């Protein structure tokens, strides 16, 4: 008995993958469904978090939170529908939080942590370790100097940001490939499901549509 679950799996997956051939009605329906469903999911999650943060405490008798919940609901509904000027008020709260979090994280974890990491001793147990540590320290030094914006660096010193840019390219190449392998493993998992489950019945259907489309477009071009 053909399982509906895997047929739906095949239809959904191949409809999205048909974008690789060209944008078409099957892909568009899958995309519109995807946007619609996740729009609902986003609000369901948002509603759930708002309930647990603000409304459930009311049921435990802490009435302050009920007020904040209604206020939050009112803020969004009232201010957004009014005008740009009013909507700035709820936004200024959220921007204040995001900016403060961004700053705290950036100073402590990113900047100071990385500076500390770049200060290790260049003399290590083995020659290879010393070479690697020197490479990392010099590399991060040059890379950071690439981001100097207001000083036009001329003359021999220019080699430092130039080397910095090369280190950036090495990092980009390495990270592209390393993350790429993970994405390919993902892709092969989906392809495996398509071949080894009842979803396989959708493959010939998809191929038929594509071939028909190629022939139809070729004949239309010749007429």
């Amino acid at each position: 008995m053909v399982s509906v679950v895997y047929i739906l799996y095949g239809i959904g997956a191949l409809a999205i993958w048909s974008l690789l051939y060209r944008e078409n009605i099957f892909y568009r329906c899958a995309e519109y469904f995807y946007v619609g469903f996740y729009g609902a999911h986003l609000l369901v999650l948002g509603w759930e978090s708002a309930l647990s943060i603000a409304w459930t405490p009311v049921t435990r008798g802490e009435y302050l939170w009920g007020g904040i919940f209604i206020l939050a609901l009112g803020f969004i509904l009232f201010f957004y529908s009014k005008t740009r000027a009013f909507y700035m008020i709820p936004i200024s709260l959220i921007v204040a939080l995001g900016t403060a979090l961004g700053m705290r994280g950036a100073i402590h974890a990113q900047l100071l942590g990385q500076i500390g990491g770049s200060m290790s001793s260049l003399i290590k147990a083995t020659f290879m370790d010393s070479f690697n540590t020197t490479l990392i320290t010099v590399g991060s030094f040059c890379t950071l100097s690439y981001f100097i914006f207001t000083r036009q660096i001329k003359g021999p010193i220019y080699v430092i940001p130039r080397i910095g840019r090369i280190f950036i390219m090495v990092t980009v190449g390495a990270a592209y490939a390393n993350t790429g392998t993970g994405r390919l493993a993902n892709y092969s998992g989906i392809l495996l499901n398509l071949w080894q489950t009842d979803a396989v019945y959708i493959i010939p259907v998809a191929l038929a549509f594509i071939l028909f489309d190629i022939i139809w477009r070729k004949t239309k071009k010749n007429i």
Partner: protein
Amino acid sequence: MSLKKISGLDARYLYLILLILSSIPILMPLGLPLAPSALTRSAYDFIENLPPGSVVILDAQHSTGYGPELGTQFAALMKHLLSRPLKVVIVALGAEGPMLVDMTFKGSTLSGSPINPDAYGKVYGEDYIFVGYIAGGETAIAAFARNSWITEVDGEQKKPLSEFPIMEYCKTVDDWSLAISVSGGNFEQMVAQWYSAYGTPIIFGAPGVSAPRLYPYIGAGQVVAMLVSLTGAAEYELLIRKPGLAASLMDVLNLAQLLIVASIVIGNIIYFATRQGGRA
């Protein structure tokens, strides 16, 4: 055709080549040569050298979230244990364990083809048993070591453990010859509760993301060996000469990555050819 047209056109031909190239190993596993890493080989050798009748614990502590990465490790280890004259006690210390053990026997997209113990001539209750799920994380790890009958009822037929002859050989951790755990975490707890406390040899099945923090345990001799990610599972499948899901997924990964390297090389050859043509 100008280079722009070539690269525009080629993207779809590339996708077609990738689809065909990666579908071949799925339909018929090629079993591309895979140099088994030392870690995988030492796990295989340890199990091969276990004296007949040894009690081996196989713990399912992974989850569906890891997909085939851990599911195939669990299946490969189970096939090997069932093909050896050993007493295999399967336990689930992870919440999704019971479902995953069932899926491994019945076959699934996470673990590969079904495993039929009868084909290995093994009898449930005498040669292998599933003692069910024990909740509690570290406390469960410690409790199961102190008393392997802690669930009192087996996970498959829900009958008292006393009715199964195999359990006579597995009362506490002292009876264990080896503890294998396929898991996404709790590694430090298992080393503490099983190896440090009782000296039980341990083999881990770990995802790629956890491997780096486990190498020190192997270096210190607290853990015998480890299977790492899909690669480890594929290598183990080739060692037990039963290429399955992991091997075919590895073939897909190998071919896809070699295709990318080839396309980088060809892309540059086209680039230099047209640039020479353009300049000449």
